[in-house]
């Protein structure tokens, strides 16, 4: 089985690649279209800013490539947001794989909720093979200021300021807002489930 991690300008690539190493999977980090198309599994990570990431992907036609993939694809964090329709982060038009928009948390300081959300939060309403043997209310590590709304593709929900999509799934496209590669044993389980698809 060949797993690739898409290389672009918003990667948190080594954390993902180390997490795969721990599962005994040696992933290839690449932006080569042929190599990505030929892979069995594709991981689309992300830490960074949405509009510049989308610009980078478009310039290299990687956005169209990702949309056309037929094998299981896993977006992580900003990777997931880029797979949605639109992001409020510098008004970015995204890939539109998932039928939801990405918005900024609106939180006054006096309610004690800070932006970005940094830390461990629980995921509920788990409804995907990604979450096999992952208990309801498992805690995952989140770091983000923008969130994907709830929609028909939502397969896990988290509450921070409001309820939002912690994970999305549509056909062969899977995505998680949290850093599953940094979320201890349960996070590792999700990666493992993805690799088994």
């Amino acid at each position, binding site marked *: 089985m060949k797993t690739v991690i898409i290389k672009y300008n918003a990667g948190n690539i080594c954390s993902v690649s180390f997490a795969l190493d721990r599962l005994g999977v040696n992933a290839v980090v690449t932006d080569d279209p042929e190599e990505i198309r030929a892979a069995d599994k594709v991981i689309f990570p992300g*830490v960074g800013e949405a509009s510049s990431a989308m610009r980078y992907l478009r310039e290299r036609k990687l956005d169209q490539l990702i949309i056309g993939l037929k094998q299981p694809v896993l977006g992580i964090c900003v990777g997931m947001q880029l797979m949605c329709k639109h992001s409020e982060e510098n008004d970015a038009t995204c890939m539109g794989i998932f039928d939801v928009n990405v918005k900024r948390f609106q939180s006054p300081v006096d309610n004690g909720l800070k932006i*970005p959300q*940094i*830390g*461990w939060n629980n995921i509920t309403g788990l409804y995907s093979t990604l979450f096999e043997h992952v208990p309801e209310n498992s805690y995952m590590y989140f770091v983000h200021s923008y969130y994907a709304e709830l929609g028909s593709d939502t397969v896990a929900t988290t509450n*921070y300021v409001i309820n939002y999509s912690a994970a999305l799934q549509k056909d062969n496209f899977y995505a998680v807002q949290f850093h599953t590669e940094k979320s201890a044993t349960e996070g590792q389980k999700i990666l493992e489930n993805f690799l088994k698809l």
Partner: protein
Amino acid sequence: MLTKRIIPCLDIKDGRTVKGVNFENIRDAGDPIELGAFYAEQGADELVFLDITATNERRKTLAELVTRIARNVNIPFTVGGGISSVEDVSVLLNSGADKISVNTSAFKRPELVDELAGEFGSQCVVLAIDTRFENGDWYVYLNGGRIKTEIKAFDWAKEAVQRGAGEILLTSMNNDGTKQGFALDITAQLSQNLNVPVIASGGAGTMEHFKDVFEIAQADAALAATIFHYKEIEIQALKTYLYKEGVNMRF
């Protein structure tokens, strides 16, 4: 619901932990990787590695160490100590660190915070402040607490957040090492007035101290070293206690 975080801090010198002793169940408590993995398994929510090496070889050793940690530890970690440029940070993040912390270098050249946030995002920029209470207020100290400044900790924290710091790691020098509890007043002032998470550090001696810093001072995370390294408090027991006391914890 977002949980409060418990963060053990490991001091590193020449690639080895400085204070780590007194663990029967791990082979080498001086090995940051073993100790880090042990804490992760015990339920630590994050780790902080503070490098106090002063040699010229520092940078390279630290980058190699960070890669080893990232390969073996499955929770997020911050690396701090002597970081003073975008280049330093780039090397550490590319080696696998999730966040970096800056202290003296950022105070001396505040634009560093803007540069780091612009280049890597606020989420990975932790501003560390060492502070001491004297003459009625909390002042910033530099160089590991050796040099006093005339700037108040709150003012510097506020400026740094405006410049893009994503988290504040606040150490009270008055409390550090005393085991008499965290500095609740300055922690509360920062936590309640700044819209970024505040990690309280210095003074943890009992489980109640953690409860107080979360409930009274509304810290987002609490950091400690000695009490964890010497097993005076075990992380599992601490989290169970806090949860029973109504503080949300991850298990």
